[in-house]
């Protein structure tokens, strides 16, 4: 029966190919939207790690979150190093990790921090060791891979967060370790001691070498990443931070949700486009099946003459639509996955947001179900026509 339906389906190859194309495009668009939004969300969640609050200089909370968590935007400015101690004193704060940004290496950000930063992401060393003093660096897996640097090599950072800034040629970092691939933002960071950033920038800005034991009151960091001790902190702490002079808090969970809502408008348009394509494909399949029932009236009547119950003939028509939908679902899913993989590659090339690894998103089960539903709706009327076929016409003289 399936084989017969398959043969009938391809007895009009052009019509079938057109319907297949329409269905595939619609399903690919829907797959892309479902998969890309699931992967973006997974990527964002992964990079949020266990960070509950980001504290930075006064400015946009979204910018603080993008700069501090995803390393996508420029920070709003610097905050005094003393803020870190102030935060750590708060009973609602379990952990406060400093981040100093400002330089980059071949487009990858150099982040001055403490080893606690690795713990936030569960990062592990692949080779070498963590930094123990200034101007030692640990490379993220992607940075090491793309730069070809290994433990013991030296490199100079560039001023600014994008490629093309002036080089800090006098201050060379020594690679002391390379992180194992984690799939998180760690992969594309160069981690070093806070003191490295101060050393490079004091030299850069003032021309004076950094002296050990310089007054910490003058020191600055860019951001502080905070983990709460209790859920109560979510209510109290942001308010307290924002009340401090020059400080701004950003709750990554809230800001990410806001970001997803903003991105959501685009995905809704794409999803709508996919659904319009699917409706057009459904109509086209409907017309093709109606035409097929008319054109193959004799064949179908002959099947009835040979003893096939009306329901089997109707099933044959529905099977044709289901086979087409099945094929389109496979092709649509493959094309959707291909598009997301391309997007992933493009984002990686631009050192932008990384999509989370995803085997098979739950929502993707909707694609074959949607295809089957559409096929059955399109086949319903043609199948009914086949069911009601007047077989006695076979025994009437041709007109």
């Amino acid at each position, binding site marked *: 029966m399936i084989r*017969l339906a398959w043969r009938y389906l391809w007895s009009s190859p052009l019509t079938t190919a057109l319907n297949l194309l329409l269905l595939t495009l619609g399903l690919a668009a829907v797959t892309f939207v479902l998969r890309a939004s699931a992967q973006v969300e997974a990527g964002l969640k992964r990079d949020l790690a266990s960070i509950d609050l980001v504290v930075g200089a006064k400015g946009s909370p979204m910018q603080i979150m993008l700069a501090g968590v995803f390393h996508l935007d420029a920070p709003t400015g610097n905050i005094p190093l003393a803020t870190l101690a102030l935060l750590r004193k708060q009973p609602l704060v379990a952990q406060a990790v400093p981040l100093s940004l400002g330089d980059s290496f071949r487009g990858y950000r150099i982040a001055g921090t403490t080893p606690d930063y690795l713990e936030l992401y569960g990062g592990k060393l692949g080779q070498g060791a963590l930094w123990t003093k200034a101007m030692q660096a640990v490379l993220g897996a992607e940075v090491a891979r793309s730069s070809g640097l290994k433990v013991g090599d030296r490199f100079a950072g560039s001023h600014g967060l994008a490629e093309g800034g002036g080089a800090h040629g006098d201050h060379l970092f020594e690679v002391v370790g390379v992180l194992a691939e984690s799939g998180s933002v760690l992969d594309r960071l160069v981690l070093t001691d806070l003191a490295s950033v101060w050393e490079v920038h004091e030299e850069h800005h003032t021309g004076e070498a950094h002296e050990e034991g310089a007054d910490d009151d003058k020191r600055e960091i860019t951001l502080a990443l905070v983990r709460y001790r209790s859920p109560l902190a979510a209510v109290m702490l942001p308010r307290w931070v924002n009340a401090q002079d020059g400080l701004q808090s950003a709750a990554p969970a809230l800001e990410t949700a806001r970001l997803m809502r903003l991105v959501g408008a685009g995905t809704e348009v794409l999803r709508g486009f996919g659904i319009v394509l699917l409706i057009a494909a459904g109509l086209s399949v409907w017309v093709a099946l109606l035409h097929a029932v008319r054109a193959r009236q004799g064949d179908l*009547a002959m099947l*009835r*003459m040979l*003893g*096939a*119950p009306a329901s089997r003939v109707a099933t044959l028509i529905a099977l044709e639509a289901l086979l087409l939908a099945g094929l389109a679902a496979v092709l649509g899913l493959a094309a959707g996955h291909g598009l997301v993989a391309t997007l992933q590659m493009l984002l990686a090339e631009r050192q932008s947001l990384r999509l989370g690894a995803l085997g098979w998103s739950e929502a993707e089960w909707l694609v074959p179900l949607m295809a089957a539903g559409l096929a059955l709706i399109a086949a319903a009327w043609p199948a009914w026509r086949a069911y009601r076929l007047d077989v*006695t016409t076979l*025994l009437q*003289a041709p007109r």
Partner: protein
Amino acid sequence: MLAWGGLRHRYAVGVEIAYADFALAAGRHLLLRGASGSGKSTLLALLAGLLRVQQGELEVAGTELHNLGPRELDAWRGATLGVVPQRLHLSGALTVAENLALPALAAGQGADRERAAELLSALDIAELAGRRPHQLSVGQAQRVALARALMRRPRLLLADEPSASLDDEHALHMLALLLTTAEREGCTLIIASHDSRVIDALSERDDVAELVLPGQAGDASADPMTYWSSGVTR
């Protein structure tokens, strides 16, 4: 083999056809004649179980068709009856061999390749198994249609106007083929035809009964017209 009594069929448009009682003894074939509009197609559809018996009794190959429901009629038709329609209706999307698999498929069974090979060989068209219907001559296509009709070893073989659109030589050849095949397969042959070449050829045979349906169908608003068959003429 074939008998009916008090058989009537009424169409929704108001036309009613009544058939005179008839019986065909086992071992004989039947030539069914009737002009256009004589109710011949309706009788064939009743014999084939395509129309349900509304009134009267109809027994075909030992089965009382008037007692069967639609699905039972479908199953009965597939197992008991082979049909070679006037327009052969070989599926153009399928090869000859695949066309021969349709009867089994219609019954929800797997294809019987051995039976197909046996019939193609018996009908001298074994080499055509892989061809498509549009690649066949009219004569070859008729043989394929005959093979398809015989796939499930029917007890009754119904050929509707088998000589239509054939020249004299091919018409008589087709007729001879139907008769010899029916004899070889041990099935009763019903030929519906108004072709004088067929009628003349069959009139010489003792094993063929002839049933003639005269006249035109009447309007049910008046008295229904009754067709009087000439019965078994020989």
